[in-house]
């Protein structure tokens, strides 16, 4: 259980270096601003005449997912690569910690920092939103919070794992930003490209069904899909919320979001811990 000592130290360092407070401020301000602008201008930012809780949740989720992924990169890219580059990892491993303890401890510590800041930010922001809306719906808001925290855990795991694969922070930065670039910014065209090539260098009139799960591969898409699974009623009512595939297949369901998030969690844990445990430090 010595990963707890690593996690505790990691968390305490974030508190001491004020990184936690900075994150907290970012999420509180962001969340409050989002709630305010949605309830104030539902037509402009949400696309509906009437502001609803569902609209607030899906509006918030779109922007929060971007912030969570970016802050996860900033907070975590140096988690292990940074200590390896400096050499402080040697002091850590001179103690009775296995490498797996260090990996898990770092993961838990950084998750704690990011999710605490995120949770406080969302609670404050959604609280303000509920007051402005004049209606308080605890269940959907709680489910939204849970899904967003799950998304944060997945992103932290991805970035810490990328950090665990290398002993150089510049490579860790490249890896984390490359991941973000490929999966969050450019991914829309990747499945299209695959279809284009598979179809003999031309786009078919109708997209094949398998493009749907491929489209959901980015963690943020999977997160929105998972939200649809958790809050089907709100998703149907909120424009931009519904993410239905528009056809029948066993995988064309919003629950696919959880599968994809689980996929990222398992794959990055496996790759990160394997690379770190077997690295020549």
């Amino acid at each position: 259980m010595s990963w707890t000592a690593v996690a505790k130290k990691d968390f305490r360092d974030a508190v001491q270096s004020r990184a936690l407070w900075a994150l907290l401020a970012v999420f509180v301000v962001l969340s409050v601003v989002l709630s305010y602008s949605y309830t104030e201008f539902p037509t402009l930012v949400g696309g509906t005449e009437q502001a609803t809780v569902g609209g607030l949740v899906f509006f918030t989720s779109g922007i929060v997912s971007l912030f969570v992924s970016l802050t996860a990169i900033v907070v975590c890219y140096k988690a292990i690569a940074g200590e390896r580059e400096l050499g402080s990892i040697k002091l850590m491993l001179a103690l009775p910690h296995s490498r797996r303890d260090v990996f898990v401890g770092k993961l838990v510590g950084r998750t704690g920092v990011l999710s605490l800041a995120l949770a406080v930010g969302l609670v404050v922001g959604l609280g303000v939103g509920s007051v402005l809306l004049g209606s308080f719906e605890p269940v959907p808001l709680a489910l939204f919070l849970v899904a967003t925290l799950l998304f944060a855990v997945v992103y932290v795991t991805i970035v810490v794992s990328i950090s665990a694969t290398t002993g150089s922070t510049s490579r860790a930065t490249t890896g984390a930003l490359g991941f973000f670039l490929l999966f969050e910014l450019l991914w829309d065209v990747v499945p299209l490209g695959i279809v284009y090539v598979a179809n003999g260098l031309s786009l078919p009139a109708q997209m094949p069904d398998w493009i749907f799960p491929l489209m959901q591969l980015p963690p943020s898409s999977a997160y929105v899909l998972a939200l649809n699974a958790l809050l089907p009623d709100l998703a149907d009512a909120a424009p931009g919320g519904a993410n239905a595939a528009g056809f029948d297949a066993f995988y064309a369901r919003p629950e696919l979001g959880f599968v994809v998030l689980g996929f990222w969690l398992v794959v990055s844990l496996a790759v990160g811990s394997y690379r770190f445990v077997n690295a020549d430090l």
Partner: protein
Amino acid sequence: MAVHDRVGILPDRYRLYDSHTAQQHLELVIDTKQATDGPAELLSRVGLSEAIDQDVATFSQGMTQRLALAMALVGDPDLLILDEPSTGLDPNGARQMREIIQEENDRGTTVFFSSHIMEQVEAICDRVAIINRGRLVAVDSIEGLRDATETTTTLTVTVSGADDDVVATVRAREDVTSASLAGDEFVVTLAPEGSKFGVLQAIDAAGATVEDFSLDESSLEDLFVEYTTPGQEVEPGELDSGGGDSRGGGPETGSATAESPEGDR
């Protein structure tokens, strides 16, 4: 991990955690090992008491090394592994390091350290291993290494009243490989097992007077060169003699690895 709890390690090329104090570093180790040591006491052992609340980012290399040693000492380990412990230490610090190693050893701790500083190794180690280009070329006590390399001991005796007969008598001894007289300087080289005292007595018995003498034994440095210079490597078979004798019961009394600079690590 159970083993790891009883080992103290001073790694090589490490970095302390900037913006943490010496006390915080020690507390981290104490918490992890669930030890009962006090940070202040540990720091006074390594001569760093005044720096207890100082940010390690401001530490000199020697202070860093002292703190790292204090961290290795937490929990009174049964085995201390020190990688180049005297890096960055001034002569006083190096001596303090040596004294601490000896203290720990006296308390029954096995100390294993690597060093390029032969005098240090020679001063404290019971057993020495030499690594050349990543290969272990010798493990033995310093005495054993001397024997195995067949390096000779040169005895220089200042004599009065010596003549050719005295030289002949000494040269006739089985443990003497050569003897020559130049003025009153009588230079005798001894075989590895030779008795210095026997030679001195023989000179005396042959009628000459021993005024003074000096001994030139091969230092660990010579032995190291002997073991790591290509073409002069000693056959491993010769090292078996006496290799295991100090591994008897009870705590081992310290051992060291002297590493060849060109060894790939």
